[in-house]
């Protein structure tokens, strides 16, 4: 009996409780409604498509604004996306079409050539920056380089409008000024994001390929010759 008392002392509190069928058990086992909003990945399935598209468009638009007023901001780097670069690349490549009609060999860049230059160029610059020991991630760098093509795309639109009015010396000078300004803007905007990720003694090594990349794109825009 002493051992039974010793063992039952451990379960002292429970000895009074008897679980029987006539004690009602009640409660609520449904999940509280507040926890579903913490987990966006699951709840975005139920939202209307319009919301999803608008959210992505807002993110893309936000980054365009960041390129227009380049100041050091972590937002563009943290939430990278490649929709903007794709849109800009396709727009630029389409606008560079419709050049000289008899362009068997001697014409401007083909659609695929523009695509290859932009994407392979961004890839090589990103690899270069990573190999030199940069702290920026691969896709963040692609994102920044792609978004900073925006001033050059705007310059292409302006150039085509100017060319509608004729292709004399005046239009050439106007186009030259516009392309130079947008090239400078693109380079400045992208180095504002990229150069910070490098140590001081290698900044120029990273900035030069970016300069070359936008220079080549600017050259393609400037030498666009419409069909006559």
């Amino acid at each position, binding site marked *: 009996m002493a051992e039974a008392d010793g063992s039952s002392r451990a379960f002292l509190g429970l000895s009074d409780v008897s679980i029987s069928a006539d004690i009602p058990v009640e409660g609520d086992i449904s999940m509280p409604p507040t926890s579903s909003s913490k987990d966006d990945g699951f709840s975005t399935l139920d939202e209307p498509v319009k919301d999803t598209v608008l959210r992505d468009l807002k993110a893309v638009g936000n980054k365009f604004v960041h390129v227009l007023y380049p100041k050091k901001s972590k937002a563009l780097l943290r939430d990278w996306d490649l929709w903007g670069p794709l849109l800009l690349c396709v727009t630029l490549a389409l606008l560079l079409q419709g050049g000289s009609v008899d362009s068997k060999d001697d014409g401007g*860049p083909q659609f695929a050539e523009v695509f290859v230059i932009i994407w392979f160029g961004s890839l090589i610059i990103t690899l*270069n920056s990573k190999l030199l*020991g940069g702290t920026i991630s691969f896709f963040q760098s692609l994102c920044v380089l792609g978004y900073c093509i925006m001033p050059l795309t705007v310059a292409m639109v302006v150039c085509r409008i100017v060319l509608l009015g004729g292709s004399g010396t005046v239009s050439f000078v106007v186009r030259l000024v516009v392309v130079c300004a947008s090239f400078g803007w693109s380079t400045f905007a992208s180095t504002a994001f990229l150069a910070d990720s490098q140590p001081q003694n290698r900044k120029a*090594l990273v900035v*030069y390929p970016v300069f*070359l990349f936008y220079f080549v794109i600017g050259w393609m825009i400037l*030498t666009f010759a419409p069909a*006559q």
Partner: protein
Amino acid sequence: MDNTDELKFQDFGTASNLLSFDQDAQTVAVSDSLASLSEEEDVKLDLNEDEEGLENSKLLGEAPTGGFWTFDYYQSFFNVETVQVMDRLKGSVMPIPGRNFVKHYLRNKPDLYGPFWICVTLVFSVAISGNLSTFLSQFGDQTYHYRPQFHRVTIAAIVIFMYASLVPLCAWGFLTWRGGAEGQMGCYTFLETVCVYGYSLFIFIPTSLLWIIPLEWLRWLLILVSTVVSGSVLVFTFLPVVRDHTRLTATTTLLTILVLHSLLAIGCKMYFFHTAVHMAAPATTPMPMMTTQVTQAH
């Protein structure tokens, strides 16, 4: 009785004789006996450095971390600073007869950044300058319709990248084979050879920009100057390596290097900067034929 023969003093000759017999031998410098032989001290120093070069070439480079499939392997080739790259660029345009580009500037730290971006810049500068010079040469011509000629970029890229990768491969292979066959001091590593060739192409970038000026004598003068400068960088680099080969092999090797280099320069000039005369001629001849066909149709 045989033991006394072995215990007799044996004359191995002086260290200099042994050194000339087998130049790869490790030597321990004893300062008082070798102080007078200053030339051979220099030879020994070169040997030590080249022995390191031999070991490095066996390890495919500068003992990089990891295999060639890891990212760190390639990161070791980009371990340069802005100041170093600027130094190497300066060294490639100012060749000094005593200075070996590899020993003086690279110092066992070759990089791939310089050669790669110099080649890319050269591709675009040659294509763009060629386009500009074609445009300028036909500026007054009313029938000329400007064309961007973008296919030239592709051709320039193929030519220049193949030159900058295949010719160093052949040079390195040949020199290593000769060096190995004759048991003498080895050649530079493959990466150092690629590096020298890449940096030696740097002078062609301002040359191609100056080629826009449409004066034929100026263009040929520029070709001469730039080929001499970059060729001499290559010659001064490879001279110590071929010095021990037979005279014929040495001169043939150096001449081949120079000839290939000047072929590249002349080829670029001829293809990308040909004057308007060639382009105008085929354009005018089809036109009379077309007009005669039109008149015959009526």
